[in-house]
């Protein structure tokens, strides 16, 4: 944190080498998050570069009250939202609990097989995961990725998105239900 503070102060004074150190420290995290939202390597790279450009231009407005990484998450989220709104028309999906639970009206819940870990996800499974999450409206996708995949706390997600904790929880639960229902036909034994 203190190291970040020194680098931020130097970068504010125009020291681009210091800003370069900040980029190198956070670029992997920001790229990985952007990919998980956009599900496209080129778009993720574009979102990441724009994020650091925006961050440099906005360094004056960074108050230091939140972590630098939280601030970067906020910027990359906005960039992903803007890119998404420019290029797509989101399908209308009901996100009422009753609708999501109705889809779970299974008489007997099938058991899922063992799921592969880490680097052994095959391309077919990756495609299934991509398709399922792309159906999820972006506002829900962002909460799911921040909280469940990147491991931010509910409060951190709330601060980043400027939403209340109950609003984050509601989006998270619906995203979990939706994704589980989408994957269910492919992953039952």
């Amino acid at each position, binding site marked *: 944190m203190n190291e970040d503070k020194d680098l931020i102060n130097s*970068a*504010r*004074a*125009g020291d*681009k080498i210091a*800003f*370069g150190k900040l*980029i*190198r420290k956070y*670029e*992997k995290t920001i*790229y*990985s998050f952007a*990919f*998980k939202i956009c599900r496209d*390597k080129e778009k*993720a*790279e574009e979102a*990441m*570069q724009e994020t*650091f*450009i925006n961050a*440099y*231009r906005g*360094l*004056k407005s960074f108050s230091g009250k939140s972590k630098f990484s939280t601030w970067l998450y906020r910027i990359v989220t906005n960039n992903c939202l803007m890119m998404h709104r420019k290029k797509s028309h989101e399908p209308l999906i009901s996100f009422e*609990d009753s609708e999501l*639970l*109705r889809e*779970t*009206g*299974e*008489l*007997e*819940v*099938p*058991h*899922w097989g063992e*799921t*592969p*870990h*880490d680097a052994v*996800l095959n391309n077919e*499974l*990756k495609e299934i*995961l991509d398709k399922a*999450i792309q159906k999820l409206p972006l506002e829900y996708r962002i909460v*799911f*990725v921040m909280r*469940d*995949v990147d491991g931010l706390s509910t409060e951190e997600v709330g601060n980043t998105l400027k939403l209340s904790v109950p609003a984050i*929880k509601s989006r998270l*639960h619906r995203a*979990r*239900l939706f*994704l*589980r229902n989408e*994957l*269910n036909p492919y*992953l039952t034994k």
Partner: protein
Amino acid sequence: MKLTDHKKYLLEMCEKVDRDLESPTCRKLREHLEKCPDCAAYYDSLKKTILLYRSYDVHYEGSCCEKVLARLELEQPIKITLPKKSRSKRPRRS
């Protein structure tokens, strides 16, 4: 019995799927899962959904540092205006 008849537990599973079921706040849910194979299978699938997405990561091998800095080179350095210091009174020399 339909799983939707267990709506209360479905919503609770959704809320507590990332918590340790051994904790006291999850006692009722844990006891229900031990008795109900359908809810247990559902809970397991919810957990696996999260694990799958967590496993699917893309590593960025290169660095965007040079590209970003090259774009920034074209810009003027950030101007900072420091607040003016108030003149402090110097102690009088005797």
